[in-house]
């Protein structure tokens, strides 16, 4: 019974089987404050979306709605064929498939790097410890810091911590990765090492949604750039068009500010 109810909206909304995320007329309020206004967004498998916009425009809120760290009050969000409602089962199911990387890394400081990486595979995916450690080491090698496995997060540089955070998400083998300003808490020389990892991930075909102001990154990997202001999607275009030929005045102003 419940299965039919879940499947139905998916079928109606899905354009093709490749749709990973579908947001339909999503609204959200913080108390009286209308933070997301009529958000419509479809992300296909393998697409890389960059979201930018001025501070306070609702970028973080939007991507945090995608794994229910924030709750939307109106409209529908369907991730991987499952609609996000209050149902905890669905939320946990979606969170297993959607990785998230935060601005401030949010590594678990009381656990070693290796334990940070193996925790979710062991406790959520019920993977045997030895297998989880193999997977963890594989991803630590991919982000080029296997030698740090035994250390604690407090002993790593910001760039290294963020790469560990990315590896931690990847250990769950997610189908979608969300990034919320992953480089904006980092010193300039560390930004590149994190972006390199992200570019590599994009080249492997990961579906990615990145909130970032790294325009070089957007130009290299994004299929689409989305500009948000005051809780709305103002403009949406492929990167070359977006940067060279912005349509909206607010986009032009924003671009002139960040590109000088």
């Amino acid at each position, binding site marked *: 019974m419940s299965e039919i109810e879940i499947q139905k909206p998916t079928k109606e909304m899905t354009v093709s089987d490749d749709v990973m995320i579908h947001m339909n007329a999503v609204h959200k309020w913080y108390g009286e404050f209308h933070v997301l206004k009529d958000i419509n967004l479809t992300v296909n498998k393998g697409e890389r979306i960059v979201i930018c916009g001025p501070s306070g425009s609702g970028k973080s809120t939007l991507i945090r709605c995608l794994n229910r760290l924030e709750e939307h009050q109106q409209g529908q969000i369907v991730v991987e064929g499952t609609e996000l409602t209050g149902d905890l089962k669905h939320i946990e199911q979606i969170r297993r498939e959607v990785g*998230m990387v935060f601005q401030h890394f949010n590594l678990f*400081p009381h656990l070693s790097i290796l334990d940070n990486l193996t*925790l*979710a595979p062991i406790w959520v995916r019920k993977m045997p410890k030895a297998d989880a450690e193999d997977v963890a080491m594989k991803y630590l090698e991919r982000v080029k810091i296997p030698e740090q496995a035994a250390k604690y997060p407090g*002993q790593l540089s910001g760039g290294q911590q963020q790469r560990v955070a990315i590896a931690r998400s990847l250990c769950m083998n997610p189908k979608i990765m969300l990034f919320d300003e992953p480089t904006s808490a980092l010193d300039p020389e560390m930004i590149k090492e994190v972006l390199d990892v992200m570019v590599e991930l994009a080249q492997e075909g990961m579906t990615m949604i990145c909130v970032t102001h790294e325009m070089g990154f957007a130009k290299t990997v994004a299929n689409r750039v989305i500009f948000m202001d005051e809780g709305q999607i103002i403009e949406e275009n492929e990167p070359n068009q977006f940067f060279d030929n912005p349509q909206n005045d607010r986009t032009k102003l924003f671009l002139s500010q960040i590109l000088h």
Partner: protein
Amino acid sequence: MTERKSDSHELGSHPDWSPPASTVGVLGWMRANLFSSPLNFGLTALGLWLIYQIVPPIINWAFIDAIWSGDSPDACRNEGGGPKAAACWIYIDHWFNYLMYGLYPKTEQWRINSAYILLLGGMIPLFIPSFKYKGWISVFLLFVFPVIAYFLFAGGSFDLAIVETPLWGGLFLTLVIAITGIVVSLPIGIVLALGRRSDMPIVRALCVGFIELWRGVPLITVLFMSSVMFPLFLPEGMNFDKLIRALVGVALFSAAYMAEVVRGGLQAIPKGQTEAAGALGLSYWKTMGLIILPQALKMVIPGIVNTFIGLFKDTTLVLIIGLFDFLGVIQATFTNPEWGGFHTTGYVFAAFIYWCFCFSMSRYSMHLEKKLHTGH
């Protein structure tokens, strides 16, 4: 010592010098810490004078003038019959068994001693850093040991004679109350703290109500009510053991304090930790158990141990409902016509024993803090 020359060195070729003599060694330390200014000098002098005034009399009382041998209390008395102004250690020796076990039958005291040995034997491996099975030992101490201890102490099965709780006493009873209180109050406190931060209004209200009720009432009142009012609510003929009522009272009372200590720790953990755990798909309980509580509890170890120490000393209040804990049995000896009257020695001994236990807890907490530190 390297000779100090102010000649210039090529960039990157400066040799290591040893630090100036005035900053190292005993003299350097004294100069920096004791005599660095006139005020500091004055305070040092005052401190030395106070030590001179206090320490020698204590040493005289406790060791030099103290009575160490003799079979009768007269050895500790003046001509007039009053106690001498020195420690009467033979009094402690005479009462030692009573102070340790209360009226617990001498022939059955091996049961208590076995439990002590089991407990200590279980705790020693916890201090050995390389020992691997700490988790199992902890499970044993927390869940198996109490059951074994209960059957040993109370008897009534396995061919052990029943020992009624009114016979329990002395340091043994103090430890029973304190350890039960400590072991029970921490988990209850954690659950209450989590409940107080829950999203569910009913759960939250219940927890807040419980915590505020127990924190708002003095322990003495709790104990009185447990022995006077509790029976009124119980059905006719049902009679709870006095000790059990005291245990429940002490444990719930401490749990309320514990809950607030733990809540302080929970509040100090950044929201990002819960979010990161949630984003990885961990459920609420896994997030709490694996991510939040380990960090929060580590942060409030000093507060938790503070509550434990308070609980340990508060156990003395069970005296007023007629249980003879360690302090209770000491006071009981004072009324003995032959061997009584050595109040000072008795109280100093009591204070010393309580201090030993509390100080050990304090040291253990510092050891734990250092061990769990991971550099954040």
